[in-house]
């Protein structure tokens, strides 16, 4: 559906588009982090593309990614411990052409930083805060990067795969829990 968008991106940005894929009717472009804002601005402002509306922003923690069963061609391989740990996903929508595209950026655990798209679409403001809150991805240029669901004192990022599901962090200070994070 939006294959033409992927072709236009590849024609315009070449190497900055690391990979494109179409699966289940969703079009995805994996882009270089350094070129994200430039590509996003192009997607928004080019009249033939006109991706004017944000849909969602989230991240995928790949650290436990070990797919089983048949793997589709082009699907991401099992996590090897070396490649970047996080995938940040942005989904955009064009109200004019009624199509969507997903942008993906790989970021490492050591430097989980990606440029913020909030200056382009204010709708990403809270979504990026949520991603920061849950995965610890830092969005450079975000006007107000605070935790959104959890409290300031919370330690760790709960949707990272290595955060134990049963771990509790009561906000009420209890002497028997102090120091036990």
């Amino acid at each position: 559906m939006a294959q033409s968008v992927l072709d236009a991106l590849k024609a315009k940005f070449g190497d900055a588009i690391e990979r494109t894929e179409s699966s289940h009717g969703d079009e995805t472009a994996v882009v270089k982090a350094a070129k994200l804002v430039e590509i996003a601005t192009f997607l928004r402002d080019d009249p033939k593309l006109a991706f004017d509306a944000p849909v969602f922003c989230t991240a995928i923690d790949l650290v436990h990614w070990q797919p089983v069963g048949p793997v589709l061609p082009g699907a991401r391989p099992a996590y090897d411990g070396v490649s970047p740990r996080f995938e940040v996903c942005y989904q955009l929508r064009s109200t004019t052409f009624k199509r969507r595209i997903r942008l993906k950026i790989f970021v490492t655990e050591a430097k989980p930083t990606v440029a913020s798209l909030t200056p382009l679409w204010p709708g990403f403001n809270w979504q990026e805060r949520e991603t920061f809150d849950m995965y610890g991805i830092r969005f450079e240029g975000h006007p107000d990067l605070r935790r959104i669901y959890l409290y300031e004192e919370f330690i760790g990022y709960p949707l990272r795969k290595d955060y134990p599901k049963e771990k509790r962090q009561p906000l009420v200070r209890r002497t028997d829990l102090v120091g036990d994070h």
Partner: protein
Amino acid sequence: MADLKTLVLGRKDAADLDREQELPHELMTVNMGPSHPAMHGTVRIVLTVDGERIVAGDVQPGYLHRCFEKEAEYATYTQIFPYTDRLNYVSPMINNVGYAMAVEKLLGLTGKIPRRAEYIRVIVSEISRITDHLTCVGASAMELGAFTPFLYLLKAREWLYTLLEEISGARLTHSYVRVGGVSKDIPDGWIPKLTARFVEIRHALVECEAMLNGNKIFRDRMAGVGVLSKADAIRWGQTGPIARACGLDYDVRKDHPYSIYPELEFDVPVGTTGDCFDRYLVRIEEIKQSLRLVEQCLAEVERGGADGPIMTDDPWVALPPKTDAYNTIESMIRHFKHIVDGIRVPAGEAYTFVEGGNGELGFFIVGDGTGRPYKCYCRSPSFVHLSTASTIMHGHLIADIVPIFGMINMIGGECDK
């Protein structure tokens, strides 16, 4: 005798007042919520006010965060249905359907669901949309002082909840839909009961519109309050009734049709001003359109055009019939594998979205080939809508937060996930 103005103001005229000297106007910080009746108990707004006027508002959600995504990563695909009920608990059926469609997309079952199941899904989804809008309109009217519409509309909602209870077994948290179909068929005698209730609901709507549409207090509180322009609505990613009230003609059911919506007739109401009153009007009209949609589906079901199974026959997805599970070893093993291991969804990722009560409700699921999702993200419309609240309320009075917040229709469970 001194005239009234001198008595009250101590001066001849209010214009004489030297405001700088006599009325200090430092900015003040006021906490609104989370324990505030209009904040649904789940949102806190730190307001900076200049007198009664809002200079800045920091909206802080999260008081109802129950780790939907984290829980979902540890549950089988079928076990997630009860969690989706608790996202938007005013229209749980739409969450059920949206989530089921997301898993079906990964399984490659989109468009292969039995027609009867699709019809039932649309019927229950539209009933849920009605309950969602009834709650929103009724509660907002009550918060503005109109108590009668609240009672009328909530009574209508209760009729629908009772009927949904008959079909699903639970009044509020239905968990009715399954991957590949629905769990139960329509019970006998259900359709005539529903049709009879629709007559009464239409009557209740007429009465409420008579009470609200021309009501001076209601209009003064709603019209011109919380205006969002069409361009802003797009940039902020608004969907659903809020976007449509701004004049943005976007409805997932029309723009990205799914299920059997392309075969049904309905109109998408679009507003012009983008204020709270238009949001109210759009919601009222959507209730009527949903009634229309359900009636078309019911007619088709009664005509026999939607006969057949309610569940796909794919043995990898559907549970075996109970009689088989109890009587044959193969079916019992299959039942066991389904319950313990879950439905094996091939590795891959997909984003699926439906028109929820509040707007685009999407599920972004990453499957790794096991019976549990690697990631199950919910794009909740309430969260996206609430993010605009601090911009919308800027420059309004504190009292205006109540209609603005009411018409954003923030559902705590969905917003906080």
